[in-house]
């Protein structure tokens, strides 16, 4: 099986996405699958072009498989299509004016596409998701407590969880673990049993578009379970413009 490229957070930055696509094509080992873990959009007009680019890959590019990110969820909430009714989180983070900015930035006809995206993707034994199995806002980092990481993996029975919320590139391996469990009910009492955890990992896949001139993403080789992080530098001046949120 060939490599996967996994990226997150294009955030409406077309130049950054093009740079990453070019880097993917340069790989000696061909990349067969391309996963985008949300935040394709940001509250910028350029997001529309990014959506179009994502939806229409060139002939020598894999068809991206995309799931919802934090910005996509906020957009759906504004359009009354989200999991919650009120854009509370959006307003808390960016203020009330952001409601209009985001609404105006993404044309209505794009909303249907955003709505069609899955919350997460499951391939082989891997969960690919923007935040975590808990929510799109759940931010996993190299400093997240081990037990919390394990919980996020076990909620979906995944051996590897790829996520992008933090924007960081990291590989967090749970190498081994044990706990002794015993149970007493009304009718019986079990003697303590040692339970072991099998090795699992959480991979932060970086961020493509947030940092001007520098994009990061991950390559994954399913056969050998190997992860490689790529940092791509590109000319930030070339037609790249970004409204600061």
């Amino acid at each position: 099986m060939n490599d996967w490229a996994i990226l997150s957070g294009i955030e409406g930055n077309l130049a950054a996405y093009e740079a990453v696509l070019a880097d993917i094509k340069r790989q000696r080992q061909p990349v067969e699958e391309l996963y985008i873990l949300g935040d394709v959009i940001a509250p910028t007009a350029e997001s529309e072009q990014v959506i179009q680019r994502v939806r229409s890959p060139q002939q020598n590019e894999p068809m991206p498989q995309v799931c919802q990110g934090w910005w996509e969820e906020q957009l759906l909430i504004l359009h009354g299509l989200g999991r919650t009714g009120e854009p509370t989180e959006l307003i808390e983070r960016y203020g009330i004016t952001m409601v209009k900015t985001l609404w105006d930035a993404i044309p209505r006809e794009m909303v249907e596409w955003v709505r069609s995206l899955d919350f997460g993707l499951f391939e082989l034994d891997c969960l690919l998701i923007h935040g975590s199995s808990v929510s799109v806002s759940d931010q996993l980092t190299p400093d997240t407590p081990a037990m919390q990481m394990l919980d996020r993996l076990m909620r979906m029975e995944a051996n590897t969880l790829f996520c992008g919320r933090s924007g960081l590139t990291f590989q967090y391996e749970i190498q081994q673990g044990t706990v002794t469990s015993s149970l007493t009910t009304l009718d019986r009492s079990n003697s303590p049993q040692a339970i072991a955890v099998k090795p699992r990992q959480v991979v932060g896949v970086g961020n493509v578009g947030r940092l001007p001139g520098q994009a990061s993403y991950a390559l994954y080789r399913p056969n050998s379970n190997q992860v490689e992080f790529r940092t791509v530098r590109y000319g930030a001046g070339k037609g790249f413009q970004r409204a600061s949120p």
Partner: protein
Amino acid sequence: MKVAVMSCIHGNYEALNAVLSDIDDQSADKIYCLGDLVGYGPHPNAVVEMIRALDIPTCQGCWDEDIVEGLNSCECSYPSVLAEKRGKQAHEWTDQVIHPEVREFLAQLPLSLRDDNLCFVHGSPHNQHEYLMPEVDAFVALERVLVTGADILFCGHTHVPYVRSLDAGQLQIRVKSTGTTERDVSFSAPLKRIVNAGSVGEPRHGRPNATYVIYNTDADQITLREVEYDYQKTCAAIIDNGLPPIFAWRLARGLEFAERADDPTHVCER
């Protein structure tokens, strides 16, 4: 000190009375209640009045929430369409008979309570709808206790009481991130426990008796209590009040009023 913990009374006043007098006999110093005061059973107002009169610290259960917020649970919180229809019947009945001040009381209940190294929730610390079944993976169970910062997590919601001890938990992790050196971290947790208080008014362990737990803090000992009561009285009241007779049939057999979800850890994202 003896702490009595009870849960899931579900409008069963007879059962509540029996449990309260058993708590008295056991000379418990404190009582906590883990919610679901109403729903399915015939005496929601009387149950809430009693809890209020005795000033028992109580956290909010999913049925209490639904009575306050309006039935908002999605289909996935019911294991079957039959259970959903019965749940809705029970909800509508309760919604009609409940007194305004009872509704207000249910509305202000907290989602969790804390007493030193003890934490009290209805379902799980993450969500009052999550079922912490005894067979939940040990690490998942451990995470639920750890996230509260307490040593013992008391929960209800499953209607079957148990004590689960999770000892000598440890994890070995390796973290690599760009720009920093690889680091190995080990994590360990001392003894943590999950105590499920069972159900006062809607038992599910195959007998009609009410269940609750007592924690003796000095001896560090947890006792599961099973209390007989005149369940036939509750059954008769269910039928007299126009609730579906099948509720009485199930109550008399310790079957709970509705089946439980197939995938109990599933929590609706809505």
